[in-house]
């Protein structure tokens, strides 16, 4: 698999899917710019990559701040001369006390924060990266959508709406960048074993995601297990690879068939 000398930027790289993706891209030979708000998490991932002989740099970034996003992406291009891959893995499922409750009770502040990080954060980084990729006449952008952005989930209206937006943004950007040879795709994870799912070590919540929650009209996972961040990272790494050059505007589910329809 190609990858030598390629430059990849990964947001949300300090944990979960972003971290696994950064490691996967590094193992394919890419130089990886690790972006996140969490500086100590970034340092740990950078050390892990360098420990395997890879190249990493860390960039402190709150993706919901457009100025920071542009500065981060431009800085990576300045430092490494190019940008071949952007993975928008920064995301939150909760932004305050009302964000994971009934839609009727979501506060404006919590609603805005989820949209700002998940949707607009993806937009700002992708826009900044696209400008370089258009000039380069090539590149790969991979976003993280969600099954919860296509199947309505109870108590997830803000998160779901933000991810529905990411799905459509992926397709619109793909359409407009197609003529430059830049592909834009997304993965749609189902339940993945990350801190987003519930406190680490809480096995009962994890078992409920696998088995389904009838009171929430929510099916479990036909494959009978949670996904791991590495499962999603492999799919992202494929969509980010040279081989995937004829795939664009696609949403690849990595969900154990949690999306039944």
């Amino acid at each position, binding site marked *: 698999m190609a990858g030598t000398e390629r430059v990849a930027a990964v947001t949300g790289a300090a944990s979960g899917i972003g971290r696994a993706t950064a490691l996967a891209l590094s193992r394919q030979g890419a130089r990886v710019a690790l972006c996140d708000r969490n500086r100590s998490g970034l340092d740990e991932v950078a050390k892990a990559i360098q420990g395997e002989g890879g190249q990493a740099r860390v960039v402190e970034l709150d993706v919901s701040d*457009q100025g920071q996003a542009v500065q981060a992406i431009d800085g990576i291009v300045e430092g490494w001369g190019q940008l071949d891959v952007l993975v928008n893995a920064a995301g939150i499922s909760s932004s305050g006390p009302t964000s994971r409750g*009934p*839609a*009727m*009770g*979501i506060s*404006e502040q919590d*609603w*805005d924060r989820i*949209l700002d990080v998940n*949707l*607009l954060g993806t*937009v*700002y980084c992708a*826009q900044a990266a*696209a*400008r370089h990729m*258009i000039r380069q006449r090539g590149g790969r952008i991979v976003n993280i959508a969600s099954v919860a*952005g*296509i199947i*309505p*989930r*109870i*108590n*997830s*209206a803000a998160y*779901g*709406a*933000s*991810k*529905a*937006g990411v*799905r*459509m*943004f992926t*397709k*619109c*950007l*793909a*359409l*407009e*960048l197609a003529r430059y040879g830049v592909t834009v795709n997304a993965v749609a994870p189902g339940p993945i074993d990350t801190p987003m799912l519930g406190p680490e070590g809480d096995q009962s919540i994890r078992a409920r995601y696998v088995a389904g929650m009838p009171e929430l*009209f929510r099916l479990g996972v036909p494959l009978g297990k949670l996904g791991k961040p590495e499962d999603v990272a492999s799919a992202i790494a494929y969509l980010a690879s040279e081989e995937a050059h004829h795939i664009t*505007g696609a949403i690849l589910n990595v969900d154990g068939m949690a999306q039944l329809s």
Partner: protein
Amino acid sequence: MAGDGRTVLITGAGSGIGRAAAETFGRQGDRVAVADVNQKNADETVQAIRRAGGQATAFAADVSRRASVDALVASVRQTYGPAHVLVNNAGIALPSMSIVDVDAATWRRVLDVNLKSMLFCCQAVVPSMIEARGGRIVNTASTAAKVPRWEIGAYCVSKAAVLHLTRCLAMELAQYGITVNAVGPGATITNLRANSGVPELPGSAEARREAQLKGDMGTFRIGVPLGRLGEAQDQADAIVFLASPEASYISGQCLYVDGLQSQC
């Protein structure tokens, strides 16, 4: 499908699809609360409804602001009692531009007006629907909620989120007997662009109509297989049906009224 004297609140009812829906509800005997950011347009809709023998009152409101929505819903309640039907129709278009160049303020504006307004209106209206153990909510989405469109990406994103919010609300409100659906207009003859302060596309109205009907392979848009543009009344009829008692087992759906344009 005759109305039984319900209270119907329609946002963006001063023109286009909202006005046609308001007039149709008015003709069938519903009390129509005509809300629009433009008071003059809302007044005109009310006059048209009254001329036809219906009941309507105009309300000026900016539904992208929570305080304005709360005041609107309180006034409607005072005038006509609690709303049985809420039509979230207010929306704006954006000027054509590459999705790479849409600035942060524009993203916020289109998400606030097209999407967050719907959350605000539902939050304000639904408590009385829960008390009444029933209600109908109909949202105006778009074929752009399903099909990516060239150089109006931010609009597409807002409408895709509208469609998904429709389904999430449907799920959460089902237990109260409240249905939540959407209509998905294709190219429809309205003043949406002018009302949004967006310049018309170049060429005469007739030339633009022909271009829509033919499609444009350069921007990856099919024409209209049914061979005509939609009228506001086409959308209004679908909205009134989804709001009717007959539609009680339909929820979380988007009815595309688009002459087959979303089949691409």
